[in-house]
């Protein structure tokens, strides 16, 4: 048992820190910290900077331009990025589709798509959820019917994150309506500019546009865009969701969030004393920090198991639940710390660029962030679904 990083791991961490120091601009850091909406260009810029350094695809094999980092290195990288207020790398091509193509796609599909993911030429989005298929994803109804060398796709996807920036979407579609729900699903790659594809924005409760609805009306998709075998898409989807869950604990985001709350509470005065010294507030803060300290170690334990080649089981569901609950609690503390200055709505565009913020600098975005991050316990398999997974594995459904 040794809780410390090895000298090699420490050297790697320093290398990452140095890179972040010289690459991340203050402007981008401020936007990430302040919940300012990153533009498409901001996200593409960060993508390109990582690609130039060769650090864009931590899990990919070197053959395809990846880093082949082990789980500990990936963990260090993710945590340092979060602590430095780096933007999240848009994951749909890199950590979702890429691994699926490498495992189940053809050589041609890999050669065609993987380099375009790295170069940023292709921006992928995810077509999984539907209005009637959320937690019960296998009930999805978007239909793909084979006609000659094409599929004709009809249906609707929803919660498509950053779909308005994407030129391609990977979709789960139903190819055999008579099979059991999980057995009639296929994994299809679709160009967003195909005739019959329509995208509409969904505005979230904090006024932001990050998710969309995508409609398919007799969209023609060439059969070579099928990944793997027809009707085996559920297997690939499960493989992809497993990849989606690495880094799900969000330890770095939580540490960055706690640092912000502490900064706010040091400046905020409560009865003539910094709020940070108020026993009630301090107790709330300590409670979250204690939870986070333990969760960070749980995360590292699972990460080192993964580094040793053991696939995480229910542990990733546990990390998803605990990680999101902690992050949401930190968002709640930030909202409390802001006091009355949580009330103003920081509507970009209404305020001139040179206008100073209303109230303390950190306070502006905290309420919007609190509301926006309610999504953490909903998306990527809701926390209820994660509990189902844990219970099913450990209790076998109680039967």
């Amino acid at each position: 048992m040794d809780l410390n990083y090895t000298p090699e791991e420490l050297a790697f961490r320093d290398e990452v820190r140095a890179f972040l120091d010289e690459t991340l601009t203050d402007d981008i850091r401020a936007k990430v910290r302040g919940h300012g909406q990153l533009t498409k260009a901001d996200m593409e810029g960060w993508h390109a900077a990582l690609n130039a350094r060769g650090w864009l695809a931590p899990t990919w094999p070197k053959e395809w331009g990846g880093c082949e980092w082990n789980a500990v290195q990936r963990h260090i990288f993710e945590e340092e990025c979060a602590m430095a207020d780096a933007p999240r790398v848009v994951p749909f091509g890199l950590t979702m589709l890429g691994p699926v193509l490498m495992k189940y796609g053809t050589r041609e599909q890999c050669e065609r798509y993987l380099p375009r993911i790295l170069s940023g030429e292709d921006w992928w989005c995810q077509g999984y959820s539907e209005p009637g298929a959320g937690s019960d994803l296998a009930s999805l109804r978007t239909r793909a019917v084979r006609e000659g060398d094409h599929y004709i796709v009809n249906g609707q996807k929803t919660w498509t994150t950053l779909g308005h920036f994407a030129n391609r979407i990977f979709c789960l579609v139903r190819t055999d309506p008579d099979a059991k729900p999980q057995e009639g699903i296929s994994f299809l790659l679709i160009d967003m500019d195909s005739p019959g594809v329509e995208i509409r924005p969904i505005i979230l409760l904090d006024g932001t546009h990050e998710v969309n609805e995508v409609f398919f009306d007799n969209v023609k998709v060439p059969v070579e865009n099928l990944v793997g075998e027809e009707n085996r898409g559920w297997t690939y989807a499960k493989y992809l969701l497993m990849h989606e869950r690495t880094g799900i604990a969000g330890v770095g985001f939580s540490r960055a969030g706690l640092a912000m709350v502490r900064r706010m509470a040091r400046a905020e005065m409560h009865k003539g004393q910094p709020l940070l010294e108020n026993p009630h507030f301090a107790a709330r803060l300590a409670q979250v920090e204690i939870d986070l300290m333990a969760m960070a170690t749980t995360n590292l334990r699972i990460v080192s198991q993964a580094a040793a080649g053991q696939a995480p089981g229910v542990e990733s569901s546990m990390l998803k639940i605990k990680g999101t609950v902690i992050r949401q609690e930190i968002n709640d503390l930030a909202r409390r710390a802001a006091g009355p200055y949580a009330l103003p709505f920081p509507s970009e565009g209404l305020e001139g660029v040179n206008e100073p913020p209303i109230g303390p600098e950190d306070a502006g975005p905290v309420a919007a962030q609190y509301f926006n991050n309610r999504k953490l316990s909903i998306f990527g398999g809701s926390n209820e679904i994660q509990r189902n997974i844990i219970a099913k594995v450990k209790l076998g459904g109680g039967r």
Partner: protein
Amino acid sequence: MNFELTEERRMLQDTLRRFLSDRYDSATRNAIMAAPEGMSAEIWSALADLGVIGALFSEPDGGYGGEGFDIAVVFEELGRAGVVEPFLDTAVLGGGLLAALGDERQRALLAEVIEGRLHLALAHYEPGSRYDMERVATTATAEGDAVVLTGAKAVVVNAEAAGHLIVSARESGAVDDPGGISLFLVPPGSKGLTLRGYPLISGGRAAEVTLEGVRVPASARLGAAGEGLAALRRALARANVALAAETLGAMETAVELTREYLLTRHQFGRPIGSFQALQHRFADLLIELEQARSAVINAAGQLDAPADERDRQISAARNLIGRAGRLVAEESIQMHGGIGMTQEYDLAHFARRIIMADHRFGDTDWHLERFIELSAA
């Protein structure tokens, strides 16, 4: 012991509920929130004509109610419909202070308030005061027959619409001295007064108010010099009853939306409300809702108690509703899933009203501390 509303209050409740369900649907509210004024003049005067503002004042003040339960009935209904118009600021705070402290000339404004022709705003809290009532750094200095006001006021709700601001300022004492605070009626066009307006995340508008040597006549003072705090405390107690009742109303709607969703949303071939994991959580929401209802009754029923006991009851209610409200807002969103996060779906608005209520006149923790202090006294 009798927990029934009086006949008059029941009629007021029915009238208001019917009016709001006919005239204040989601589309109307969204249009109001998107408008630059952040409120509807038409809805305001229609509700004034219905007697909604009059219900918040006693007969000697020109109304027909004014007790804690009148406030609770009106604001619970406003909360159920997610009304964003500033009844709390104009009538309970502004009107309440005019009624409590005003001389004959100042009290003449009450008729305009009750008829829906005049807006008011209380400019009391400051950038460094957080939720502390006594902490007033804005100064009032006598110069001959005039008083000069200098300072800054934070998040003054309804400031831009107000025909008069009621500004608290210190005439003597240290910055957190309970004595020495006076209130002044300040017209919005006064020289040296600037407003920086902005929308609020849960609807309505507020402004940062700066006073740079604003000169008002001594006759603009409300009540006796340096004795404003007791009246402020009472006005804020009434505002807290209003806010607690409004939040209760919003919680009722959030829970009802959740109930309907649990019954209609199907996953895995059955309504999600048939899953026990969700049934138990929904049951907890109902329990907390009844706790919140009782907390509002406790607070409304003690509005005329001696100040310390009154405020202890108020803080108990706000602390409980802060906790129960957070549970209801967060669990309602979670049980809805993604749809509960969208602007388009009504729940978002009610969740914002519930959560952001915790940022006015003290949050859950502030009221817990105050409850402890007042219980020890």
